[in-house]
């Protein structure tokens, strides 16, 4: 948990740790990728939240974030050493993530989604002795967990940190302060203790420090700071994205790192459920390591309050689903998991034809022993499109349609040749026309007998 050589947290009278030595952590942050919910929903005032679409959940957000990070850095899933996730993820969900990334062997570590978990997980990853490949740490929420502000919609999003031996941003000090007792000003006091715990925080010029706060309300963050707010304070951007719960602190850190001057330290303070976690990072910040603006600017569908209510009315728990569809057993469904999760089809070595979905013989030359597995890019164009009106959904999708209303479905011509039938998702599906470019994305399709079924849908290609 603590940096190598640092004294463990002590539960003494003033509930503070001893300062860590300034030696940097053995591993450092190499980059980060942020993905936000696909829907921009109006809330009170001018605030908007980026909430999950009805077919997005923790699983699809993790897969999307990891895939996007790999794509941005020009690698495939073999680059992942291990995956650590701050979210509730049962064994079935872990299996979907591993299969969707094409890494059935991928070790997945879990941290319960509590306020301090993301900080704990990141400090732990940085402090670990070099071994294996890079750690992909994903803090994620689909907004469907109990929020920090009950009664208001929670935002959905994920932040991925890649921690590696050659990660330039090293952890130089950390402090954990646990709340001792309830009294006025307690949290502000703890905050001061945590900042002091960062060792040289008191000695360096405040203007050189980039300070990241994780809190959902900037006014409260300023109150917590307990003094004049410095101009270099970066609080969690609640106005932009809404309440991300335990992901908030990760986004605050990315904001600070993205805006930091190279070589100058970044303090990171996380008001946690039972106190405060604080850390300082320093190192050369690679210019392209954090694609934050891209995440904020990613197209999102905008819905009004009614739309938000309808999205919320879709219950992906499957409690309301009746197994009345053309029953495709889970076994039958998962027989095609590579095709459903990551568009693995076939290539015929005899006639050079690409085939999707996979089958026993080549539709071109009828070859049966000539078919190799072939991963499609997921890029394609709309070949034909329709809008399925209310009440027109197959029974599996009745709950989904009750939430989202009419939806669009299409035949997509994949760039490699074959065509597939698929639902369209994401922003502006109604505006998609024949020949428009689309890209595949893993989404929650339907729930049957309490089991979530995932598969590809297509969205407008940016």
């Amino acid at each position, binding site marked *: 948990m603590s940096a190598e050589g640092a004294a463990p947290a002590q539960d003494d009278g003033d509930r503070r740790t001893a300062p860590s030595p300034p030696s940097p952590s053995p591993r450092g942050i190499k980059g980060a990728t942020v993905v936000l919910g696909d829907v921009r929903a109006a809330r009170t005032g001018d605030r908007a939240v980026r909430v999950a679409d009805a077919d997005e959940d923790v699983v699809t957000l993790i897969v999307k974030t990891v895939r996007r990070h790999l794509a941005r850095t020009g690698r495939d899933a073999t680059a992942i050493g291990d995956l650590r996730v701050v979210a509730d993820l049962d064994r079935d969900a872990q299996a979907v993530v591993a299969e969707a990334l094409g890494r059935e062997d991928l070790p997945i570590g879990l941290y319960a989604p509590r306020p301090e978990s993301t900080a704990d997980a990141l400090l732990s990853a940085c402090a670990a002795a070099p071994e294996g490949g890079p750690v992909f740490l994903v803090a994620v929420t689909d907004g469907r967990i109990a929020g920090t502000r009950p009664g208001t919609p929670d935002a959905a999003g994920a932040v991925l940190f890649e921690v590696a031996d050659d990660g330039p941003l090293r952890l130089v000090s950390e402090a954990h302060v646990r709340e001792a007792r309830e009294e006025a000003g307690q949290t502000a006091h703890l905050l001061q203790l945590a900042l002091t715990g960062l060792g040289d925080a008191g000695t360096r010029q405040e203007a050189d420090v980039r300070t990241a706060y994780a809190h959902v309300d900037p006014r409260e963050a300023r109150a917590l700071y307990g003094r004049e707010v410095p101009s270099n304070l970066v609080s969690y951007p609640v106005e932009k994205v809404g309440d991300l719960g335990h992901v908030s602190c990760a986004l605050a850190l990315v904001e600070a790192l993205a805006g930091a001057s190279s070589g100058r330290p970044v303090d990171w303070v996380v008001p946690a459920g039972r106190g405060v976690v604080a850390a300082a990072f320093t190192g050369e910040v690679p210019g392209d390591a954090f694609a934050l603006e891209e995440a904020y600017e990613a197209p999102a569908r905008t819905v009004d309050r009614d739309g938000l209510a309808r999205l919320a009315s879709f219950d992906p728990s499957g409690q309301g689903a009746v197994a*009345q569809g053309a029953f495709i057993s889970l076994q039958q469904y998962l027989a095609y998991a590579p095709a459903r999760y990551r568009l693995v089809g076939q290539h015929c070595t005899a006639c050079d034809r690409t085939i999707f*979905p996979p089958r026993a013989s080549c539709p071109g030359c009828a070859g049966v022993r000539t078919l190799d597995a072939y991963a499609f890019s997921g890029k394609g164009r709309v070949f*034909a499109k*329709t809008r*399925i009106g209310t*009440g*027109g959904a*197959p029974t*599996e999708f009745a709950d989904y349609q009750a939430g989202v209303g009419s939806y669009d479905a299409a035949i997509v011509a994949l760039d490699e040749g074959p065509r597939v039938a698929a639902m369209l998702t994401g922003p502006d599906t109604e505006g998609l026309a024949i020949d428009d470019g689309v890209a595949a994305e893993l989404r929650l399709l339907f729930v049957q007998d309490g089991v979530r079924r995932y598969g590809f849908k297509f969205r407008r290609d940016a």
Partner: protein
Amino acid sequence: MGTQGAGRRVAVVGAGQSVFGDRPVGLKGLFHEAFDAMLESCGKDFGRETVEEAYIGSLGFGGAQLGNPAALLLEHVGLTGVPARRVENACASSGFAFRDAYRAVASGAVDVALAGGIEKMNDLTGGHKRYWLGVSGDTEWERLAGLTFPGVYALMADRHMHEYGTTREHLAAVAVKNHANGARNMKAQFRKEVTLEKALSSPMVCDPLGLFDCCSTTDGASAVVLASEDVAREVTDDPVWVLGSGAATDHLAIHDRPSLTELPATRAAFAQAQREAKAHGHAVGPADVDVAEVHDCFTIAEILAVEDLGFCPKGEGGAYTASGATARNGGDGPAVNPSGGLKAKGHPLGATGTGQVVEVVTQLRGQADDRQVPDARLGLAHNVGGSGATCTVHLFAKEGAL
């Protein structure tokens, strides 16, 4: 290619159907009604005990009697003991039942065979109805893309519009024509004409298909008796000859097909029926057809059918229909769906194929009353399962026409 077409001459000697629509009767009663209508159409009592083989088409009528329905229904009409089976090929179930019965007689295996079909859909709840319609597409891929049959046909329509400039007005022209015909059919579910404006203003189901672009799945039964030439001469004065039978299958999912704007199974089945007719000495081209019952489960389906059957060039089916070419009376082409088609007569899935045969036989016998197609001598029945995965085409000729 086997010996197809080299078989014996076969005639339809009796053909009848129940009233299609919302029928508050049981399966047995519904079948009985069709069977009685069939007996009546023979003119003579052909003797039900002479039936040697029976084929009953049904998708499954909501699962109420999914197992062994053929034995049950035949027992009810006094045919206990006859070898019978249910034939299932989605909405082409009784087209295939008819083909099987035809081939049993043509081959010489039996002299008299019964083909029929039955479905009850109106007593199903909305969810169950969608279930029974949804089991006939590619359930693992097409359906899990959120597509129902209206959705699948809407994709075909979208593509047809894109490739050929077909319009919603063209689609609506199919509905207007078929409702005009259905209004004259006492056994049709919908006996009201609709205007182009009304058809166009109906609620959107799956863009670009509105409510009036979709047929109504419904209750109904139909029954047809086929006999060898010798027997036919004995039991009826008015045999209708089967000139040829064609059938084909295709990719179940439309995304697997090279084109969304044609049904290769229709073309293959028609070509096979033509070859068989030729083997019997009759060259039949599209222009020879006077009356055609085609599978118009959606308006776009009739447009595809008139193109794939060669009544008009590919891509022109919409304008061709809108021009009135396929009207019951006075068009340049064959009268298409004088019964009202699936659109107005109603679509009791498994009963539709033999129901089409009933109409063609009635027309060729000149017994279609108000909706009689003038000088109908040669007829065609075209039955499609799913979105074209299964298809039958049968060619018929009036006694003395050839």
